[in-house]
C-alpha cells in the first residue's frame, strides 16, 4: 500500500533524525570527543589535603590538559590522600622530579592538578610516584595565618 510506504519512510526519517540529534549531543555538546579516558599510564601522588579535588578532575601542564584524576583514597597509615593520576600516553616525557600542585581554576572554580616539570633526565612511567606535592589551599588556614602574623606584628 502506498500509505504504508509513506509511513515507513517517515518513521525511518524520524528514527534517523533522532539518532542524528543524539549524535550531535554526544559529539558537539558533551565532552565525548575530548578524550573519553581509558588508556594512559598511571602515576600516584600523595597530598596532605586534596581540598575539593574530584575524580575526573583535569591534570594539566602549563594549562594544557594531559590527563585526569582516576581515584582518591586515604592511606590509613600515614593519613595522607593518595591520588592516582591517569596521564595520556602521548605525554610520556614528564620528568621524575615534577611537582604536583592543586590549583583552583578561577576564583570560585573547581580544583585541578597542575604539574610543574622538573629537570630530571628520567621520566615518569606507569606505576611511578610524584615525590614533590603541594596540597590545596584551605581558606581557614590562610585566614588563620594572616591573623596570626598580624597579631605578631602588633
Amino acid at each position: 500500500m502506498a500509505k504504508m510506504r509513506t509511513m515507513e519512510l517517515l518513521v525511518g526519517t524520524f528514527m534517523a533524525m533522532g539518532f542524528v540529534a543524539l549524535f550531535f549531543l554526544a559529539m558537539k555538546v558533551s565532552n565525548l570527543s575530548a578524550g573519553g579516558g581509558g588508556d594512559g599510564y598511571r602515576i600516584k601522588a600523595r597530598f596532605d589535603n586534596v581540598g575539593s579535588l574530584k575524580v575526573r578532575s583535569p591534570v594539566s601542564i602549563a594549562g594544557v590538559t594531559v590527563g585526569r584524576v582516576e581515584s582518591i583514597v586515604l592511606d590509613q597509615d600515614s593519613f595522607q590522600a593518595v591520588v592516582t593520576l591517569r596521564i595520556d600516553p602521548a605525554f610520556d616525557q614528564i620528568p621524575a622530579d615534577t611537582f604536583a600542585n592543586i590549583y583552583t581554576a578561577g576564583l570560585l572554580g573547581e580544583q585541578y592538578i597542575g604539574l610543574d616539570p622538573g629537570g630530571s633526565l628520567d621520566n615518569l612511567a606507569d606505576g611511578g610516584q610524584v615525590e614533590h606535592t603541594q596540597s590545596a589551599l584551605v581558606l581557614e588556614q590562610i585566614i588563620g595565618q594572616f591573623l596570626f602574623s598580624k597579631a605578631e606584628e602588633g
Partner: protein
Amino acid sequence: MEPVARLGRLGLRAVAGLGRAHLLLLEVLAGLPSLLVRPRLLIAQLFAIGVLSMLIIGVSGLFVGMVLGLQGYYVLSQFGAAESLGVMVAASLVRELGPVVTALLVAGRAGSALTAEIGLMKATEQLSGLEMMAVDPVKRVLTPRFFGGFLSMPLLAAMFSAVGVAGGWFVGVGLLGIDDGAFWSQMQAKIDFSEDLINGVTKSLVFGIVVTWIALYEGYDADPTAAGVSRATTRTVVQSALAVLGLDFVLTALMFGD
C-alpha cells in the same frame, strides 16, 4: 465512621488498580515476541507517536532553548560569566528540560490519544471482537503501542535538547553577541557524556515506559462509555504529569547527587 470507611474503600480501589496495571504491563511485555514477527504494527505506532509528535517537540524545544539563552544571558552577565551561557543552556536541556518537558508534551499529545483510542475500542466492543476471533487484544493492540512510545521518547527528547541548544546558540551568539568559540568550548568541556547525556537518555527511557504504560492502562481499564473514556483521558494526562515530575526528582537525586 463513614468518611473513614470511604477513605478505606478508595485506598483499596487504588491498590487494586495498581495491581491491575502491573498485571497488564506484564501481559504487554509478554507480547514482544509476537510483535517482532509483525514489524508493521510497530512502524505504524512509531509513526503515530513519534513522527506526529516531532512538530510540537521541535517547536517547543526551539522556544525553550531561546528563552534559556535570553534568561541565562541576563543572569550570567551580572557575574561576568556570560561566556558560560553554552554550558547553562546545554546542562539545563540535556539533564532536565529535554527529558521532562518532552515527556509532558508526549503525555498530553500522544498519551491522551492512546487512551481515547483504546477506551473507544473497548466501548465499541472491538477488543471483545478480537478476543472472539481468537486474537489476543493485549498483544495485538497494546504491545505495539507500548514499544512505539518507549522507543520514541528518548529520540524525541534528544531532538528537543538538540533543537534547544541550537535555539540558545542563536539567541546567545547570534543576537546577544557572545563569542561563538567560547559558547561551544565551555559547553564541550563541562557537559559530560556519561554523567549528563547518558543520564538524560536514561531518564527519557524511564519516562517513556511510565507515560505509555499509564496511557494504555487507563484506556484499557476505562468505563466503556463516552463519559468513561473522557474521564480516562483526563486521568492519563494528570497521572502522567505527576509521575514524570515525581520520578524526575527521584532520578535526579540518584544520578546527580554525590
